[in-house]
């Protein structure tokens, strides 16, 4: 029983790591900011979930599992918020998507782009990613 | 030593704790200064704290005179498990020097800051000043190699900002402070690296334990490189010749109080630590001797000659004094490199003499700065007529620097020369002679302009500095004169220090 959990957990950890790696490839390969954010944030939460689930299976029902649960909740809270802030900042800075039909956004971006808010947001998402 | 007996009035319970109180006093004082509501209160805290540190340093010196070496185990853990303070005659002398300069600086800061530091920065400035004082005192007392790094950083981090505050007078203080920070941090990191190698070879950080274990170890590349890195790292802090690039800018740009305090203590504390490592920690044998006579002595000689020449060609008074400091560090290290009791004693005596005279010189320059923006030598034309008392004190300091008889500088140079002759190192005597001659040239130029030229027509007039500035200035200048006539106190302390170093080695 313990061994099976170990193997399954290990597999999940490896899968999570691979998914995160895939996200990294996506960040490098995708054409514009929005798709890159999408690649990074989705694989980040997904990868972290898989890794944490795997670790929880390995550690069994102990205090560690509870801590892993907290970590998971934290990741699920911060990564999407960071992705949102990043996209928001890119939008305010006037970045337009290269793929898809988003022509309507051009006018809005120009009117809402304000230098001071944009600056605050860029330093912001680094901040929330740090802890 | 009778003086200490007379001054020593602390109750015994306090004396037992005096070594740590010397360090903890200024630390707590720095907090009090940071909390105080205005610059005036902060100044009073600063003076009281520095005076307390000096009192405790006197108590320690008296104790050392009676007992020899004091060990103080912090946290009640005997070394090498815990950190211990270890104070011998050398450490006691250095602490007395640093604490006295600290008191003078604190007194001086009452008025001197007004022209150079903005009102809202003065409380923090005093706090930083006390932190530096605590850092240097800790550096002098600690017996633990890594703890020395911590105190090195306590003093340095404050110093960088204090130097940069000089921007109010001269914006070149900012890049100077930055390059001081870079050099200082590289030096401190090299020191940590060196201590790391020594730690890897011995497994301990306590200097006494380290020395004992190194003595049994024999030749090992890690030990040799470790010692080299320790000396190089401290050499940056001590402005040893090729590593002195940060010093002229920093001394020239900093507020006068900081220049004076750094010139009199910062390089001296680093030299002290170099001496401590070279004589107490280095294993006996070829390596130490090769280092002293083939690396330290030539570099010191180069410092004496090259930096004196640079001082001659320099046009700003503060920079002249700064280059002169590097050259004088060379004089001190030449004495140390002889590695004889006479040489070490002469080096220590020179160290004290230089601290007093450079302190007086920078203080006098600050006294002029209270009323007039003078930078180049020409700006000081005829200033002796406008501010005669400050100029007189400057004259005494400069005379001591040049080695005029009846000043402490003369005795210091004399003892260096006789120590070199005793050791049979004729070339060192020659270097000393050339260096003194060069010193005479730049000192003479400054004095000539100040005392014998008429003030520049139409320039703003200098006024005499207030008493709060003059009093500490006169004390320092007066000490230079007094010790030039009756040098029993500093000479006996220098001798005791030298015998503590050379006598301690087996």
């Amino acid at each position: 029983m313990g061994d099976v959990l170990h193997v399954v957990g290990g597999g999940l950890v490896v899968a999570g790591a691979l998914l995160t790696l895939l996200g990294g490839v996506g960040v490098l390969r995708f054409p514009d900011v929005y798709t890159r954010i999408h690649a990074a944030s989705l694989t980040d939460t997904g990868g972290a979930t898989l890794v944490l689930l795997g670790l929880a299976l390995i550690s069994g029902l102990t205090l560690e599992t509870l801590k892993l649960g907290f970590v998971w909740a934290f990741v699920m809270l911060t990564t999407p918020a960071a992705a949102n802030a990043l996209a928001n900042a890119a939008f305010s800075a006037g970045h337009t998507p290269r793929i898809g039909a988003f022509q309507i956004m051009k006018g809005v971006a120009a009117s809402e782009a304000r230098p001071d808010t944009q600056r605050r947001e860029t330093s912001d998402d680094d901040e929330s990613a740090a802890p | 030593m009778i003086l200490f007996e007379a001054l020593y009035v602390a109750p015994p319970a306090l004396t037992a704790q005096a070594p740590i109180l010397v360090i903890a006093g200024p630390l707590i004082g720095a907090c009090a200064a940071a909390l105080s509501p205005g610059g005036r209160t902060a100044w009073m805290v600063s003076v009281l704290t520095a005076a307390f540190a000096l009192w405790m340093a006197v108590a320690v010196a008296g104790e050392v005179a009676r007992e020899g070496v004091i060990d103080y185990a912090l946290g009640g853990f005997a070394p090498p498990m815990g950190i211990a303070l270890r104070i011998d005659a050398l450490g006691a002398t250095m602490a007395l020097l640093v604490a006295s300069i600290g008191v003078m600086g604190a007194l001086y800061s009452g008025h001197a800051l007004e022209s150079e530091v903005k009102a809202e920065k003065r409380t923090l400035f005093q706090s930083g000043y006390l932190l530096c004082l605590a850092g240097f005192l800790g550096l002098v007392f600690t017996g633990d190699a890594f703890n020395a790094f911590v105190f090195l950083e306590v003093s340095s981090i404050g110093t960088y900002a204090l130097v940069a505050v000089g921007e109010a007078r001269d914006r070149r203080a900012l890049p100077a402070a930055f390059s001081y920070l870079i050099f200082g941090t590289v030096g401190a990191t090299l020191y940590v690296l060196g201590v790391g190698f020594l730690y890897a070879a011995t497994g301990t950080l306590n200097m006494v334990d380290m020395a004992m274990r190194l003595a049994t170890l024999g030749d090992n590349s890690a030990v040799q490189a470790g010692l080299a890195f320790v000396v190089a790292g401290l050499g940056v802090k001590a402005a040893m010749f090729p590593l002195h690039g940060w010093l002229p800018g920093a001394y020239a740009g900093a507020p006068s109080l900081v220049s004076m305090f750094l010139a009199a203590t910062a390089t001296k504390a680093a030299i002290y630590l170099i001496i401590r490592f070279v004589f107490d920690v280095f294993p006996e044998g070829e390596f130490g001797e090769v280092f002293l006579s083939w690396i330290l002595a030539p570099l010191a000689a180069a410092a004496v000659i090259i930096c004196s020449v640079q001082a001659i060609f320099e046009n700003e008074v503060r920079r002249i004094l700064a280059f002169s400091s590097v050259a004088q560090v060379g004089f001190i290290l030449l004495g140390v490199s002889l590695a004889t009791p006479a040489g070490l004693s002469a080096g220590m005596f020179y160290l004290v003499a230089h601290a007093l005279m450079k302190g007086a010189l920078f203080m006098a320059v600050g006294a002029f700065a209270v009323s007039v923006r003078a930078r180049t030598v020409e700006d000081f034309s005829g200033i002796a007529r406008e501010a005669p008392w400050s100029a007189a004190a400057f004259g005494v300091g400069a005379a001591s620097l040049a080695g005029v008889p009846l000043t402490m500088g003369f005795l210091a140079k004399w003892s260096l020369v006789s120590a070199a002759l005793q050791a049979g190192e004729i070339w060192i005597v020659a270097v000393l002679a050339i260096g003194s001659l060069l010193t005479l040239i730049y000192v003479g130029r400054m004095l000539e302009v100040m005392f014998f030229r008429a003030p520049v027509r139409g320039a703003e007039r200098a006024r005499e500095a207030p008493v709060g500035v003059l009093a500490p200035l006169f004390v320092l200048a007066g000490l230079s004169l007094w010790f030039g006539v009756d040098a029993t106190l500093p000479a006996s302390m220098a001798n005791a220090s030298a015998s503590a170093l050379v006598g301690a080695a087996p």
Partner: protein
Amino acid sequence: MSEIALQVNFGLNIALLLMLVAIGLAIARTRSLLAAILLMGVYSLASAVWLIVMDAADVAFTEAVVGAGISTVVLLGAILLVRAGPVRHNWRMTIVPAVLVLGVGGLLVYAVTGLPEFGDPASPTNAHVGRRYLIQTPDEIGVPNVVTAVLASYRGFDTLGETVVVFAAGIGVALMLGFGPRSNLPPAPAATGDHHVVLRVTAKLLIPLIALFAFYVQFHGDLGAGGGFQAGVILAVAPILHALVFGLRGTIAALPVRAVRSIATMGVLLYSGVGVVCMINGGGFLDYDYLFPPSVEAMIPPGLMGDPDHAHHWGQHFGIFFIELGVLLTVAATMVTIFYGFAGRAAEEPGAST
């Protein structure tokens, strides 16, 4: 099994070190300051992982929090203020440093060959004082985390110095950046509407949790990785996050500059105060065994807490507790002071330059 485990450990070590070297090279090569700063953050995180492999849990925690967290924030704040363009390279400026670096490197390599082998349990480092800490801590200090015992008690004086260094850095930054017209701080960016709603809600949720986590790290330091430094930095993140999301003006109104500075001072005073109390009770400075007079110590019932096998050192427990609290206060307040310094400048500058 054992051999394999050791080899996996060593392989991980080598892989992570190679990664660190690669990141270092990338930092040296890049011309973009932003990229260099982010790579420094990555470097810190990677070295935190390496530190875990090296069994240095406390250091890993600190490196992650300080290196990847606060250093990155300070660096980003600085490039925001200096608005520097890409770094210019000048070929003439590379030759002298290269020679210098090769010289130092050669000396270092020469030195390294004299060191004991990596991982050698009998090396002087691991056999002398280090081993004695491991053996004596249960009897002398009674704290499970030996790193905390050494940090706070055996080498408590170092830690005092370190706290003072942090305090001095706060003073330094305040002297450089902390003063200027405070009147023209821009209003909070609440006016920008829905754009920040996700951030605001998340921040409101997170700020109390961050503070709670900081206190967990603080008080768990005796038992596991953690302690005043890590907790202090984490605690400082709460007001920093608040300032970033809700605007500096509101944060300063809640936590005035002077109050923060006083808290930093209180931390150092608390730490050195513990030392002084020990001294008044007849011990040495920071000798926690004398923290309580014997009459007080006698009142504490035996077996109240901790390991029943060993004698209780209430003085040590409470001494470590108080000094870690001092460290927490100083570090947290100083980090906030430093942030105020940089962020305050950033907020002021548009007004000052136009």
